[in-house]
């Protein structure tokens, strides 16, 4: 099946423009990456509500904090590595501690960023953000879902982190596919194993489920776009129904998405689990396709993990 291809960052950029039209409180801040974060589209239409802060992530986060204290809804955007790492203390102590209404768009998540290499491939932000009280963390699976997540973030009170990627990826949801924050979406029913994924990896999980079907293995696929607050109910249900879970993320396994799922599983209904994700190493330069293979993130790796885990059931 052929999918339309679109970058999740485009969904973010389009939502900001729509928010510009519909919500006068929304303002956007940039740190010299307005084009690649797609915030330039907002800046062009609403120059009075866009603040260029220059290459100064810490200042940008706290300037946004100040704007939020005047009732604005600031969206700040730069690459995920810089915003979550370099400005982590600002996000922690100024924004999350006081539950300030700042929205953070983290671009260039995952190894699929490609040739820029390890320094620009965010592989740690899910862990860094979800550990903070009051923070909500969303990793949408495609461009339309990123659009909806961004629109939703503006409605919520308090800090939100949205991760998006650089490359064009398959559009697997439709404009009218429901997006409920904090509620997992089951994209495919199955009874032998649950593939729980976020971001681009939802597509790889769906591909894997198709292949598994040919091998008479029935895989349930869950798009767990909201990592915090996490949908415990959906995870427990999946564990009980299928008795085995494979998590799929384009992020370090340690502390990340799979760990978040495991926290729920272990405490409520321990079943065998496998984690597809980055195994404690930094990224590399290469094409996105090469890197997905190099880091064992593609559907064939998911299939292998499923076959192994089924032996442990």
């Amino acid at each position, binding site marked *: 099946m052929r999918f339309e291809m679109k970058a999740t960052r485009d969904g973010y950029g389009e939502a900001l423009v729509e928010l510009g039209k519909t919500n006068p409180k929304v303002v956007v801040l940039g740190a010299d990456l307005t084009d690649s974060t797609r915030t330039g589209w907002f800046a062009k239409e609403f120059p009075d509500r866009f603040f260029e802060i220059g290459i100064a992530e810490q*200042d940008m986060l706290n300037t946004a904090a*100040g704007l939020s204290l005047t009732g604005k809804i600031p969206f700040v955007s730069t690459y995920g590595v810089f915003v979550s790492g370099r400005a982590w203390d*600002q996000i922690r102590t100024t924004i999350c501690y*006081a539950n300030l209404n700042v929205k953070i768009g983290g671009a260039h998540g995952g190894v699929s960023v490609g040739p820029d290499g390890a320094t620009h491939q965010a592989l740690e932000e899910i862990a860094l953000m979800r550990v903070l009280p009051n923070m909500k963390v969303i990793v949408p699976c495609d461009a339309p879902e990123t659009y909806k997540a961004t629109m939703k973030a503006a409605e919520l009170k308090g800090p939100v982190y949205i991760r998006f990627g650089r490359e064009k990826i398959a559009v697997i949801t439709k404009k009218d596919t429901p997006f409920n924050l904090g509620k997992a979406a089951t994209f495919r029913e199955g009874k032998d194993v649950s593939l729980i994924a976020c971001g681009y990896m939802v597509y790889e999980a769906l591909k894997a489920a198709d292949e598994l079907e040919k091998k008479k293995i029935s895989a349930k696929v869950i798009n767990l776009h909201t990592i915090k607050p996490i949908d415990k109910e959906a995870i427990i249900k999946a564990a009980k129904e299928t008795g085995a879970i494979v998590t799929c993320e384009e992020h370090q396994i340690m502390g990340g998405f799979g760990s978040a799922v495991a926290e729920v599983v272990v405490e409520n209904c321990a079943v065998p689990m496998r984690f597809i994700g980055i195994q404690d190493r930094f990224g590399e330069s290469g094409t996105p396709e090469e890197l997905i293979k190099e880091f064992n993130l593609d559907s064939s790796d998911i299939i292998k993990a499923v076959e192994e885990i089924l032996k442990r059931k």
Partner: protein
Amino acid sequence: MERKKRPDIKGLEKEATEIRKDIIKMLGEAGTGHPGGSLSSVEILTGLYYYKMRHDPKKPDWPDRDRFILSKGHICPALYTVMARCGYFPKEELMTLRKLGSRLQGHPHMLYLPGLETSCGSLGQGLSIANGIALGARMDKKDYRVYCLLGDGETDEGQVWEAAMTTSHYKLDNLCAVIDRNRLQIDGFTEDVMKLESVRERWVSFGWHVIEVDGHNIKEVMDAYDEAEKIKGKPTMIIAHTIKGKGVSFMEDKAEWHGVAPKGEQIELALKELNMKPSKEQLEEAEG
């Protein structure tokens, strides 16, 4: 809105002494906290809360209030005292500082205590927040002003200079910052830890209007706030030359008193000295 008339200087000096006594008492009761920078910043805060700032302790959420952003969060004993004495909360509550369940956290938390504009404690962040508020005020066409207090040691933080660029880039003349230039930080003299001089030239070169004052001379401090309000097209930095531990002889100019609370006899001695202050001044006045 009409600004307050200048309060009587002698009265404010006496009030400053009372504030210092409260700081010593609350730190003594807590057994922990930061006296040095609290004592050095008393007149800076007094000039704002008793004179310059438009604020109403009965309406801490008043949208048109001037905003005070404390960037060096550890000197909150001074801010808490000033706020209590202005009527934001009962004075007795000062004695709960740093205790479990208190609204007066060891470093300020805005969600606990009405009247605090931010939570702070990690240095270097306040000026950026103040910039954001000043930008918001401009967007909303509001005429309230934003004040921000930084420590001199705090300006070691790179973020302060990121923020300094933003304030001047956006020509935020509705913002006035103050550096409490007490020349000391935990590890010793600022010039030994990490050279800051020339403080004035640095801020001038970043595009700020700079005023230097004796930070313990309440009239000079108030004059500086008035001058800042008249400066258009650029932000103002007031460099307030102060003495760390001001008012308590054994604490003055001693880095050791940055973050250690007085105990037992030290409390009594400090209060005795401060109690003598008005009468000593009256004596000098009589002699002079």
